[in-house]
């Protein structure tokens, strides 16, 4: 038995490590084929890894990516594909930024202001995701389709509201436009790091808490069990008395609420306004990070850190003459290889387990025999 556990740990590591090595190989070949030196690239990345500012930026990116990944993973665990995290967080960030920047908020105590901002963001995110859930349980509309469309609608809605006549204001001489700046009482102070002019987002704590709650709810509560059960087999869940419709609505609402948090570290820790240069597309990064981290609270953390570092090492690559696009290739290859590697390892594990069972029963049955 102990032997089996040691092997399963080894197998568990084989997939991500194998995928990383494979991805590194592919990128090396691409770099060499395009006339760039793989060694220089590694060198530039190693240099970047020693620069405090790059590390701080990587951690900040990872914080945001992690929140997005958890939002996606909540859906994934239920076999729900929430592609709408992107629209959910943008709408949530915009509306909560408008609220947090509003003049009347100045009189509230700092803690209350921040809590209100975050609360509203979660509500907006949940509400926007809730539309997709409602469509799914009442009309049977696939959440894949509805969330993609809701992303587009969110874009137009934000663009409509981001207007001087409505929720935004312009600064003379600037071509930017954004919500009123959140004054100091509404900001979340960052954590100073020596050698870096950029601070670590104070809300890195929020990401850690969300990660913990995600782990706790999924693995230690009845709700989490029902959620996973529904994802694994809907009919089995129904047979054991789980209301699938209720689970769809609740998990979409939760996914949306976490999605609402995605913009918060950036908004309250750095931008202080939702403007044209607020980072878009984080929801899609979340999908990749959730895939890479296998929806696992720690796995996604590692994936988010890796993703964040790659993104922030791009500048260093660019300046040393390596095209920054290699980072995109790396990220794409890593996700693909991880998905493939896990499938290969899963098949190997199934066969190994069958052989072990076969041995215990006195005769070995091959996979072909089993399926025949």
């Amino acid at each position, binding site marked *: 038995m102990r032997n089996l556990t040691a092997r399963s740990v080894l197998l568990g590591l084989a997939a991500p490590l194998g995928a990383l090595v494979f991805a590194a190989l592919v990128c090396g070949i691409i770099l060499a084929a395009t006339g760039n030196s793989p060694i220089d690239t590694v060198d530039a990345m190693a240099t970047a890894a020693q620069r405090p500012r790059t590390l701080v930026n990587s951690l900040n990116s990872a914080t945001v990516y992690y929140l997005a990944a958890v939002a996606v993973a909540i859906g994934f665990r239920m076999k729900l594909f929430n592609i709408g995290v992107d629209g959910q967080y943008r709408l949530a960030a915009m509306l909560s930024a408008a609220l947090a920047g509003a003049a009347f908020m100045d009189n509230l105590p700092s803690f209350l202001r921040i809590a209100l901002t975050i609360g509203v963001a979660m509500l907006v995110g949940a509400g926007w995701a809730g539309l997709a859930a409602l469509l799914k349980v009442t009309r049977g509309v696939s959440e894949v389709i509805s969330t993609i469309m809701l992303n587009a609608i969110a874009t137009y809605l934000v663009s409509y509201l981001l207007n001087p006549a409505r929720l935004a204001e312009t600064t003379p001489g600037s071509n930017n436009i954004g919500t009123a700046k959140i004054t100091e009482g509404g900001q979340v102070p960052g954590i100073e790091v020596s050698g870096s002019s950029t601070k670590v987002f104070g809300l890195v704590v929020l990401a850690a808490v969300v990660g913990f709650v995600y782990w706790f709810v999924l693995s230690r509560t009845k709700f989490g069990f029902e959620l996973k059960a529904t994802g694994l087999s809907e009919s089995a869940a129904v047979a054991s008395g789980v209301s699938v419709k209720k689970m769809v609505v609740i998990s979409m609402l939760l996914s949306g609420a976490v999605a609402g948090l995605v913009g918060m570290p950036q908004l309250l820790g750095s931008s202080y306004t939702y403007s044209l240069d607020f980072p878009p597309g984080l929801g899609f990064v979340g999908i990749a990070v959730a895939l890479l981290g296998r929806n696992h609270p720690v796995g996604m953390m590692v994936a988010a850190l890796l993703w964040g570092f790659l993104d922030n090492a791009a500048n260093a690559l660019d300046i040393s003459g390596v095209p*920054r696009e290699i980072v995109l290739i790396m990220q794409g290859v890593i996700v693909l290889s991880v998905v493939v590697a896990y499938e290969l390892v899963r098949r190997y594990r199934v066969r190994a387990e069958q052989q072990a069972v076969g041995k215990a029963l006195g005769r070995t049955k091959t996979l072909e025999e089993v399926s025949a």
Partner: protein
Amino acid sequence: MALGLTLAACGSKNDSGSGGTTTGGGTSQAAAKLKIGLAYDIGGRGDQSFNDSAARGLDKAKSEFGIDVKELEAAAGETDAQKEDRLRQLAEGGYTTIIAVGFAYETAVEKTAKDFPEVKFAIIDSAGPSADNVANLTFAEQEGSFLVGVAAALKSKTGNVGFIGGVNVPLIQKFEVGFTAGVKAAKADATVQVKYLTQPPDFTGFNDPAKGETAAKGMFDAGADIVYAAAGGSGNGVFKTAKANGKFGIGVDSDQYNLPALADVKDVIITSMIKEVDVAVYDFITSVKDGKFAKGEKVYDLKAGGIDYATSGGKIDDIKSKIDEYKAKITSGEIKVPSTK
């Protein structure tokens, strides 16, 4: 590691070099040492539009002065901190003159300039960041758009013209407002159809000819016969549709009649609103080279140059005198072209 050390070494050497440039003026030795870093907005070199225009200015300076150049590009979806990191790495790498292309660099320039007082910064399209070592290069796009609006109104047979903006952002709204004002000034009862290809943060509207084609088709079907495409690379699609329907288009940023990439459709381009980002970049580099860096806003408008309309192709030769009348009125201040709705 080794690379980092080399960069650091370069940095300290060039810091002293830059001191020589600013105090000693434009000796050829100082010019040879001039290191220019240029940070593009999303799309970078090769976007057939705004970034390419900046690149042209840089290339011209490079071939004339033999400067050392480093070009970096923005990624889609990045944060201000990542933009700031880009500028800081340039500054730390010994690039003593840094040009940020696009208003998205506002925050990044403001923060970086503070920590590198000896480095000269320029930001294009933003009067925002203000410091002793920052030059703001801005353009009065509404004035040039006004003139092509006059041209459109005078050339239109249907009294119905169109405006296609790449992305619905304040910068492009300046083009729209100026254009509409120009059309109305020349022909008060003319109709102006307005369409933006995408909404922020979706910036694909600047580089999606297919979207331009669809939008232009809609406008031509609704009675327009001239469409002004303030949409970067998407303009190609607008001109293609214009050609297929026997209608006309107006170009943007450069004299698009003369662009090799648009040679197939150039006969439908009656004029272009010229915004010379390349001239601004070149002028700025020259000023630093000659030790004549000037901080603060430099507005490129009809009066100062940098904004104009094109006459290549001869399609508007018959109305040129009328357009020039308006031009004179704008430069004299008699007509004040609005820039916001």
